[in-house]
């Protein structure tokens, strides 16, 4: 009797558990779908016949596949230039941010550094305050950093958070390594470049990926500081394409007539096709590096969670 009751209970709970399981799978599949489908939808539209996608006929799989959209979009001079600007700021900005974070992170562990603790706090304190957007804008203008490529680089070159990450990592490296080099007569810079950099590579990779994504995604600095369209980034150009229907129409006409008079309806550029194709062009680098930083980012969060 007793065992029967127990078994009944067991079956009951496992049935309940199964139900929960089923619901969980369904709900999470939905979440995943909601996150993946928009990217997929835009992508299949860029490779489908433009006259079909313009009328909203491409929903789940591509129709009449072609790749002329990508070829045509890269022919738009403005777009190609902003691609160059975006790539340049990402490469230069990331390199500078990483090397500075590594160097300062290392220097702030050197007990010989004059007033080390004070300067460390001087840098880290900037994490906790912000002058606000307008005073910052006026400062940048006073410094001549409007309509200037370096406005994308210098203000973000020093990132206290990354410096804290590097410092924490350097501190975990055995001190003997530095001491040995010092006895051999290596100077501070030599220790940094020859010994530290190779050892702290993992954290530098993490920082590089975060910094690169931030640079690539940055929008606000262009909005505030740049009016010269030669310096527009890809993000900003995309934003303009989304909002300025009129200039886009001119663009549509010019690209269509320049490709060929007999551009078929399926490959002729439309406002929708340009917007979608540019979206894919902008999002692709993120999706490409994403698997790499999947490996790093949890680690990054965990280090960051430790109080600096």
């Amino acid at each position, binding site marked *: 009797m007793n065992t029967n009751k127990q078994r009944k209970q067991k079956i009951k709970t496992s049935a309940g558990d199964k139900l929960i399981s089923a619901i969980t799978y369904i709900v999470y599949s939905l*979440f995943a779908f909601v996150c993946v489908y928009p990217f997929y939808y835009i992508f299949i539209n860029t490779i489908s016949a433009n006259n079909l996608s313009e009328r909203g006929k491409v929903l789940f799989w591509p129709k009449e596949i072609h790749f002329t959209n990508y070829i045509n979009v890269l022919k738009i001079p403005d777009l190609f230039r902003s691609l160059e600007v975006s790539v340049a700021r990402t490469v230069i900005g990331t390199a500078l941010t990483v090397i*500075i974070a590594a160097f300062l992170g290392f220097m702030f562990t050197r007990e010989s550094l004059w007033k080390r603790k004070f*300067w460390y706090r001087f840098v880290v304190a900037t994490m906790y305050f912000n002058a606000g*957007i307008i*005073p910052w804008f006026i*400062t940048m203008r006073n410094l001549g950093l409007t309509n200037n490529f370096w406005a994308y680089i210098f203000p973000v070159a020093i990132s206290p958070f990354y410096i804290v990450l590097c410092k924490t990592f350097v501190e975990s490296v055995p001190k003997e390594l530095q001491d040995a080099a010092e006895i051999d007569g290596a100077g501070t810079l030599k220790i940094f470049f020859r010994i530290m950099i190779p050892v702290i590579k993992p954290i530098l990779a993490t920082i590089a990926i975060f910094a690169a994504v931030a640079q*690539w995604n940055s929008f606000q600095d262009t909005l505030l500081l740049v009016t010269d369209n030669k310096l527009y980034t890809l993000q900003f150009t995309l934003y303009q394409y989304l909002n300025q229907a009129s200039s886009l129409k001119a663009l549509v006409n010019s690209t269509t007539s320049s490709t060929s008079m007999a551009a078929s309806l399926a490959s002729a550029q439309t406002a929708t096709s340009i917007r979608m194709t540019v979206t894919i062009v902008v999002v692709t680098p993120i999706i490409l590096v994403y698997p790499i930083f999947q490996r790093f*980012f949890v680690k990054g969060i*965990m280090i960051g969670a430790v109080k600096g």
Partner: protein
Amino acid sequence: MNFFKNKRKVRSLKEFMYIVPFLILVAVFSYYPLYGWVYAFFDYKPPFPLSMDQFVGFKWFVSMFENAIKIKQLIKVLRNTFAISGLSLLFSWFPMIFAVFLNEIKNKPFKKFVQTVTTLPNFISWVLVYSIAYCILNSNGVVNSLLMSTGLIDKPQLFLQSSTHVWFKMWLWLTWKNAGWAAIMYIAAISGIDEQMNEAAKVDGASRMQVIWHITIPSILPTYFVLVMLNLANFLSNGMEQFYVFQNAFNKETIQVLDLYVYNLAMGGGGYSLSTAISIFKSVVSILLLCVTNKVSKLIRGDGFI
């Protein structure tokens, strides 16, 4: 002896010289802008330097609350800010629950897949989010196409160019972008729970829901609490990028949060001084909020988060 001391001193100053350029950069880009707060006390007219502008004292601070139209405008902006921050706060448990049930999934590849794809939107910019919203919600987009073909609506809805449910929609996009990422914090916290506790509970005959309710959730509540407190401290700062890209003539009244208002006021209307005054005001309130929440956290958990 003296020689060694000197040598050490030389070295310490030499190392200091290496970092001077970077300290200057920090001073210029992080400390020097604070000086810009003086613009709030002047009648700043952009092309002229500050020396040619009139010192007006607290005029701009007073003027915020002076005439009825400005008060009304400010109240509207504050209402939007409070509504959007309030919604995030109200649903701040969502990433936690998301993480808890994700952890219940036994199928590892599926779990990994869900975690990967739900985190991805966090790494794209707001412009791209807007672009995606635009592509799927415009009159020929997939949402309208499906709704039309199922007969739920008979003509395309313009979701982005509407003034209805703007706060809720903004919250939805924010959640779409951030929830998966926010859940990672909790997933890490859950993985730190002692496995023996779960085992013991199962031996005692606890069902899965009971394990979740009595073990998992209490174990990650401290993490949740810290995040809620941080959320509260940032109550006035929703950032401007999201609202800037989503704003248009139709939703301007309900989308303009404090950060966006400060931007629009200065860059749209040239009200640099007033907008600086408002942002100073905001900073002061934010610091107060941070102190209060930190104090509350100390009282409840015995540990602050600053």
